[in-house]
C-alpha cells in the first residue's frame, strides 16, 4: 500500500454569496488547491466530489477541464467530505492512480435541512410529528451527557465563544465577530439546553484537497503533509443516533468512538500525540462530547480542560482553531475538507494569527452526521 501525501489545499470562503453557484465555488476551490500544489488540472488523474445540494458535483469538470478522468460523486450526509477524502486517498493507497483530488461544495438555504424522512428510511409521520430535525438529537445527547458527567452550561458557552473568537481570526469564516458567553447563554433557546448561538448554521462554501503517492510528492512541494489514515464508521446496534424512533436498552458507543480508534490504529499514533484537532461542532455540546469520543479525554474532564483554556489556540489541545462549524457554518459537501485545509496550514506553520505554537506535527479531524455516521482522519508531517 502506498503512503498518501497532501500537496495542495484550497478553499472558497464559507458564508452566503447571493447568486454564486456551488459549482462555481467548487471550481474556485479546485483552482486554489492546484495553485497551492503547483499543479495543473491536466495532472489530475481522478476526482471525488461531494455535495448535498448538487446531484452531480462531478459536473465541475466543465468549469475546470473536460479531461475525461474518472470522477465519482459521494454523499454521506455530514460525513460527505471525509468520505470524498477517504475515497481519493484509498485510490492512491491501493495503487490505482498517482495523483487526484477531493472536492466538496454546497449552497444550503437558510434554516434546517429540508427533506422527506422516507429518504432516511423513516416513516412519513416522523416529520409530521415534529421529530424530523437534527437539533433535537443534539439537545437530547448533550442534556444527558451534562447530567451524567458534570458539564455546565457555562462550558457550552465557552466552547461557542472560543469558536467565534477563532473565527474572527479566520478571513474565510462565515461568522467573524466574537460573541461573549453571556450573549450566547441568553440567545433564544432552541432545544434545551442548546441556545441559538451554540449551533452552527447550514451555509455555502467549497474546499478541495490534492493528494498524490508520497514518493512523487517532492515534485510538488518540499513539505508534504501525509494523510496517515482515514476511517468511516456507521452506527452499531445499541447506539442512539440522530433521526431514530427507538434505541436499544443495551447501549453501545457512538460511531465516532469506533472511527477514531480505527484511525489511530491505522496511523500508529495515539490521541496524546495529536497537536491540533478539528471536531464536529454541530453545536457546542457536540464539540464537548466529541473530545471524549475521539479519545482526547475521559468523560467529564472537559469541564476543567475547557475552563483552563486547554482547547484554545495557545492551549495543549487546540480544537477548531479556524472556528469550526460554529464560525464557518456547514456546507455539508465541503465541511470535512475545510477541517483538512486548516490542519494542513497548521502543520505547515502557515496558519498566521491562528498558528498553534510548538511546531505541530500531528493533526486529527472528525465529522459526524445523520443517520449516525462518523469519520476520522489523521495527518502528520
Amino acid at each position, binding site marked *: 500500500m502506498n503512503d498518501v501525501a497532501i500537496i495542495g489545499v484550497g478553499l472558497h470562503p464559507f458564508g452566503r454569496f447571493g447568486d454564486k453557484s456551488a459549482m462555481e465555488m467548487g471550481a474556485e476551490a479546485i483552482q486554489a488547491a492546484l495553485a497551492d500544489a503547483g499543479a495543473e488540472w491536466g495532472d489530475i488523474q481522478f476526482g471525488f466530489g461531494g455535495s448535498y445540494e448538487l446531484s452531480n458535483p462531478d459536473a465541475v469538470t466543465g468549469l475546470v477541464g473536460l479531461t475525461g478522468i474518472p470522477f465519482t460523486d459521494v454523499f454521506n450526509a455530514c460525513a460527505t467530505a471525509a468520505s470524498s477524502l477517504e475515497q481519493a486517498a484509498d485510490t492512491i493507497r491501493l495503487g490505482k492512480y498517482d495523483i487526484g483530488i477531493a472536492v466538496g461544495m454546497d449552497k444550503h438555504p437558510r434554516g*434546517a435541512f*429540508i427533506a422527506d424522512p422516507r429518504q432516511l428510511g423513516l*416513516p412519513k409521520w416522523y416529520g409530521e*410529528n415534529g421529530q424530523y430535525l437534527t437539533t*433535537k438529537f443534539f439537545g437530547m445527547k448533550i442534556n444527558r451527557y451534562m447530567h451524567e458527567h458534570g458539564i455546565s452550561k457555562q462550558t457550552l458557552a465557552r466552547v461557542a465563544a472560543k469558536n467565534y473568537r477563532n473565527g474572527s481570526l479566520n478571513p474565510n469564516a462565515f461568522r467573524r465577530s466574537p460573541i461573549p458567553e453571556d450573549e450566547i447563554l441568553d440567545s433564544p*433557546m432552541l432545544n*434545551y439546553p442548546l441556545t441559538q448561538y451554540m449551533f452552527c448554521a447550514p451555509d455555502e462554501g467549497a474546499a478541495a484537497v490534492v493528494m498524490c503517492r508520497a514518493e512523487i510528492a517532492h515534485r510538488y512541494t518540499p513539505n508534504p503533509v501525509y494523510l496517515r489514515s482515514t476511517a468511516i464508521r456507521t452506527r452499531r446496534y445499541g447506539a442512539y443516533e440522530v433521526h431514530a424512533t*427507538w434505541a*436499544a*436498552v443495551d447501549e453501545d458507543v457512538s460511531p465516532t468512538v469506533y472511527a477514531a480508534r480505527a484511525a489511530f490504529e491505522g496511523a500508529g499514533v495515539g490521541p496524546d500525540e495529536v497537536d491540533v484537532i478539528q471536531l464536529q461542532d454541530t453545536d457546542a455540546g457536540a464539540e464537548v462530547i466529541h473530545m471524549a469520543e475521539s479519545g482526547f479525554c475521559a468523560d467529564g474532564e472537559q469541564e476543567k480542560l475547557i475552563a483552563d483554556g486547554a482547547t484554545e489556540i495557545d492551549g495543549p489541545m487546540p480544537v477548531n482553531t479556524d472556528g469550526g462549524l460554529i464560525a464557518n457554518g456547514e456546507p455539508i459537501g465541503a465541511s470535512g475538507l475545510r477541517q483538512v485545509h486548516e490542519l494542513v496550514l497548521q502543520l505547515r506553520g502557515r496558519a498566521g494569527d491562528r498558528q498553534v505554537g510548538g511546531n505541530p506535527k500531528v493533526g486529527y479531524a472528525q465529522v459526524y452526521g445523520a443517520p449516525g455516521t462518523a469519520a476520522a482522519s489523521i495527518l502528520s508531517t
Partner: protein
Amino acid sequence: MARALAPEVSTWPDDDVQLVGSRCDDCGATTWPRQPRCPRCSRTNMSDLLLPRRGTVVSWTTQEFPPSPDYAGGNFEPFAFGLVQLGDDVRVEARLTERDPDRLSFGMDVELTMIPFYVDEDGEEVVTVAFAPA
C-alpha cells in the same frame, strides 16, 4: 371521530393503549415501531410485541421552534421530546406532555397517553403518542 397520526405504531383506540414494537425471535432485539428484519442479527424472525405503558425518561429536550416544513401541528406551540425506556425492552423517542425544563428530570416515571395533535381538513381530530409524568 378521531384518528391516530400513525395508526400502526400503537393499539389506539383500545383502552389502555400500548405501543406496538417488534422483537426478534432469535436474538431478542426490540424495535419501535415494528420492522420485518432484525437490526442486530439481520434475520427475518421479528414478531409483534406490545410494549409496557410505563417507562422512565432516559433523556429529554425541548422543541422551541417549528421543527420542519412538514410539521402537521398547525400554529406552533413549543413542546418537549423524551427518550423513554419501556421495561427492559426498548427506548422510544416521543413527545412529552410536560415541557418545562424545571419539571423534567432524568429517570422520571412517565406513562403512555395519546394527545390531540391537530384537526385535519375534514374536521377529524388527529391524536399522537406522548408520555405524561406518572
